[in-house]
């Protein structure tokens, strides 16, 4: 049906245009966004939990580390972390591999404006397939997102742990529970109700941060919107003027739908969690 695009007209042209190979890649890139969300959410939650525990730890250096981790996102834009973490981790890994794999090379790694490691230490290896590079970039992006959103989650979880009424903990102690038991059996289960509004907000922020993948050189929806929307001359099968505004409008709609559905979901969830609690709606 789409054999010769130049003979097509109107609606049929549009259908064929929207189903080209590149457009299919564009549709697949929405999966990249969803994949990032699915990968980052539990990672960030785990990092946040660890951060909150570290902040409340009895060991002083660990407490400092926890405070540093939770406080750094307050003063520094998330963009800096997204740009910094992937390169920094990449260089760190390559440096370690360089030390292990080619100990015979004694030249400094930072030479003027260059970062030089031996070929065997490169990550991914120079002869690796393109998909390896893509996956590596994606994993780096996930780590960067997990670090930033873990710090936000740590703030939320720490606040929620504090919000559990002191009397509940006193009662637990009065029943003879140890500190550990009090934490795991009373404070932690109660914490989730207090943390939920904050965590649902974090989910919204995470959704809205996903287009920043583009800055990390990943072929995400922003990349394809720019690529496909740009002016196409007559040499292309489907010539069209600059349509980037329409593509970005479509992305706006996608995000608005996602946040709208998420909001509805979290309102329902919040109602459920707060069933039977005094002063339920937080």
């Amino acid at each position, binding site marked *: 049906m789409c054999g010769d695009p130049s003979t097509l007209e109107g609606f049929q042209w549009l259908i064929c245009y929207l189903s080209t190979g590149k457009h299919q890649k564009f549709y697949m890139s929405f999966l990249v966004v969803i994949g990032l969300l699915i990968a980052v959410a539990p990672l960030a939650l785990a990092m946040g939990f660890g951060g909150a525990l570290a902040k409340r730890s009895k060991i002083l250096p660990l407490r400092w580390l926890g405070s540093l981790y939770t406080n750094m996102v307050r003063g520094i834009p998330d963009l800096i972390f997204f*740009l910094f973490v992937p390169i920094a981790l990449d260089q760190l890994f390559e440096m370690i591999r360089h030390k292990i794999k080619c100990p015979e090379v004694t030249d400094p790694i930072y030479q003027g*404006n260059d970062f030089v490691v031996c070929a065997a230490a490169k990550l991914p290896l120079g002869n690796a397939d393109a998909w390896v590079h893509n996956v590596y970039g994606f994993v780096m992006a996930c780590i960067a997102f997990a670090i930033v959103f873990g710090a936000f989650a740590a703030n939320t979880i720490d606040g929620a742990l504090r919000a559990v009424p002191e009397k509940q903990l006193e009662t637990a102690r009065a029943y003879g529970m140890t500190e550990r038991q009090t934490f795991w059996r009373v404070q932690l289960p109660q914490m989730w109700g207090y943390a939920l509004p904050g965590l649902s907000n974090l989910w919204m922020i995470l959704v809205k941060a996903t287009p920043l993948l583009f800055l990390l050189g990943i072929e995400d929806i922003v990349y394809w919107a720019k690529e496909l929307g740009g002016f196409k001359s007559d040499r292309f099968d489907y010539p069209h003027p600059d349509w980037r505004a329409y593509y970005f409008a479509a992305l*706006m709609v996608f995000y*608005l739908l996602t946040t*709208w559905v998420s909001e509805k979901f979290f309102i329902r969830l919040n109602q459920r969690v707060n069933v039977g609690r005094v002063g339920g709606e937080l």
Partner: protein
Amino acid sequence: MNECLQTIQDYGLRSLGFGERLLPKTDITLCEQVTLIGSGLVWNIYFTFFAVLFGFAAATLIAVAKASPSGLLSKPASWFVFVFRGSPLFIQFFFAYELFVMLPKVGVSFELFGIEFGAQTQWLTKAWLGGVIVLFLNTTAYSAEIFYGALKVVPKGDIEAAKAYGMNKVQTFRRVVWPTMLRLSWPSYTNEVIFLFHASALVYFSSFPTWQQSGDAMYYASYFAKTTFNPFIAYPIAGGYFIMGTLCIVFLFGLANKRLNSHLALEAKSTFRFAPQWLR
């Protein structure tokens, strides 16, 4: 030390287009990085200042409209807030830029006003105007939601008391509702301004092009990270500048908060707390 003074002279106002034209390429010193990234911070402050200045007034109007009983006012206001809060700022930048680029081509009155109007539509594609407009709309939506939340919880008794004193609607709003709204929302609004300041780093990473390599702090930071292949110096410097800016905002807004709360007993005062839900 003298060398560094020279660098500051050369690059101190580079982000505004003054001083040395060429950016340092080889043998980049720490001083050059600190100076250039610092000079770029002027743009972040500029974006934040003007977006907040206009956004504050607009947000008050939108919040009042959203809280109004008339659907004719509240519906559009709610939609405005939903669109700008529900979509990523990064996409808003891209979308707005492409719209601004399209403008002169579809503009009807373009030829009628001649050169003057033509120049004006072109300015929209520049970061100094286009970037501020997007940030302004964005912060208006976020602040309006904050103010709206505060408007809803202004004590009914206060308003009744104002009525009993014979104040009309405008007087009630100006003297009772508005100050209370500000007082209740100020801690959240402080967060909003901090995150707006942070979000200003996105302007030059979205479509808005830099002209003659005059960009903001993050533009220079990423320039250095790219040229030196060393992210461990430039990004922490930029981070340090942003921390200082954040502390300044906390300080200034703290002063305003003191003034808003000055008539209250100590325990009733609202204090600033970190609340990431106003992050975009």
